[in-house]
């Protein structure tokens, strides 16, 4: 497989949907393809920034680790989106978090130096990056709000809603308890107890590696979260 990314592949990425053919061509010429297996780290917190990463296929999780090894998920990044934007213009220049492949992933990276050249030469690319950054900002702001003000139960319920996908008319979440614990910032056991409580009142149904959401609207109700979390905490 070639290491180059075609303009056709690039056009499928949401971030570039507003750019014209010349701009797409210029960006694709800067990009390099990279593949990662599940569990492989793409970069670690503190590493020098390599560039801006786009996901052509698969999912990547962005996490911060404490010195004792406990993990806090910042976000899950899906196909079509990007990550690694923070260090590109920061005076710090190093990655503020880890990036790890959740599934097999195919990535396209624009090296750091090329990004800055593109920004300088084309305002539309700068505008695209601003849009990406503000999506991130909103996500981090919400995460800060959740961690500061919500109970663990509320955060787990919110995580289920945020990652629900429709499959044969059923809303499903394809995350392990460990993944949810990482995203929410708690222990796997806490997640398992909370999910068991939700299952006991028929809000969800747990299968191996898949959670079916039977009553998604009930997950949005504060009292559902409180009742389940009363047993969790």
């Amino acid at each position, binding site marked *: 497989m070639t290491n180059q990314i075609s303009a056709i592949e690039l056009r499928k990425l949401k971030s570039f949907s507003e750019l014209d053919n010349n701009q797409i061509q210029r960006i694709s010429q800067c990009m390099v393809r990279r593949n990662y297996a599940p569990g492989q780290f793409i970069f670690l917190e503190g590493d020098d920034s390599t560039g801006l990463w786009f996901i052509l296929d698969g999912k990547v999780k962005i996490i911060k680790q404490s010195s004792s090894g406990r993990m806090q998920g910042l976000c899950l990044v899906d196909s079509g989106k990007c990550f690694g*934007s923070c260090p590109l213009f920061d005076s710090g220049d190093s990655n*503020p978090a880890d990036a790890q492949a959740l599934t097999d992933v195919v990535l396209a990276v624009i090296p750091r130096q090329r990004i*800055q050249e593109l*920004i*300088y030469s084309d305002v539309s690319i700068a505008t695209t990056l601003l849009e990406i950054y*503000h999506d991130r*900002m909103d996500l981090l702001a919400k995460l*800060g709000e959740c961690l500061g003000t919500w109970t663990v139960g509320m955060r787990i319920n919110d995580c289920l809603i945020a990652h629900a996908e429709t499959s044969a008319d059923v809303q499903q979440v394809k995350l392990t308890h460990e993944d949810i614990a990482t995203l929410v910032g708690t222990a796997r056991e806490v997640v398992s107890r909370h999910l068991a409580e939700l299952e006991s009142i028929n809000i969800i149904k747990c299968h191996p590696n898949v959670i079916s959401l039977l009553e998604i609207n009930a997950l949005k109700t504060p009292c559902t979260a409180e009742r389940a979390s009363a047993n969790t905490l």
Partner: protein
Amino acid sequence: MVKSVDRLKQISAFQSLSPLTFEGLSRTATTTEYPPNTIVFQQQDVLTGLYVIVSGYVKLYRKSKDRVQILAILRDEDFFGTECLTDNRMSSSFAATMTTTTIIHIPYDAMQSLLEINPVFRSAVLQMVTNRLRQFAQLVHNLAFRDVTARVAMLLVSRAEFDGIMTLDGVRIPRLMTQNELATVIGTSREVVQRTFKKLSKMSLIEVSRKEILILNLDELRIIAEEENR
């Protein structure tokens, strides 16, 4: 107005602008003095431009029912409202003054124009935004990994480094926030903040009075701030 424009020149993002561009900017930018505890904009408001603080303090926060989480406290030469440059221009948080605060507002059209004509300014705006991203990511890290004592210590160390006045007794920091507001910064309750202050006082690390906090041992406070216990 002349004084506010001069303050903009001190901010690195605006230093690349030519005198002619600056003159144009000074005609469109407006300066407003806000009283304390005034909301500048609400979460999900459509923003009309960038805000730059000339003097005073502004807090960015989100609300969840009756609970508040402060995301950042900004001071002079800080900016906020870059969401005005996105497609939907909607603010991701509330912004409110904490003290009497003077703010320059640069309208959206002027910001767009600057981005189009000046690549160095483009890069500088992106840097502003990534600095804010890093700040928010650090907040998430602190809330997830540091216990309350470490978070209080971290806040005090940060205040000491930015606003502290070195004296023979220690580092003096003026009381900027109520204990309630401090609790919303670090994600806990006022009672827990009170108990933590008492604990740090008993350890002879701080002295708390109505108008100020005196940090007696900044080095030791830094060590506590860096501890990750969760």
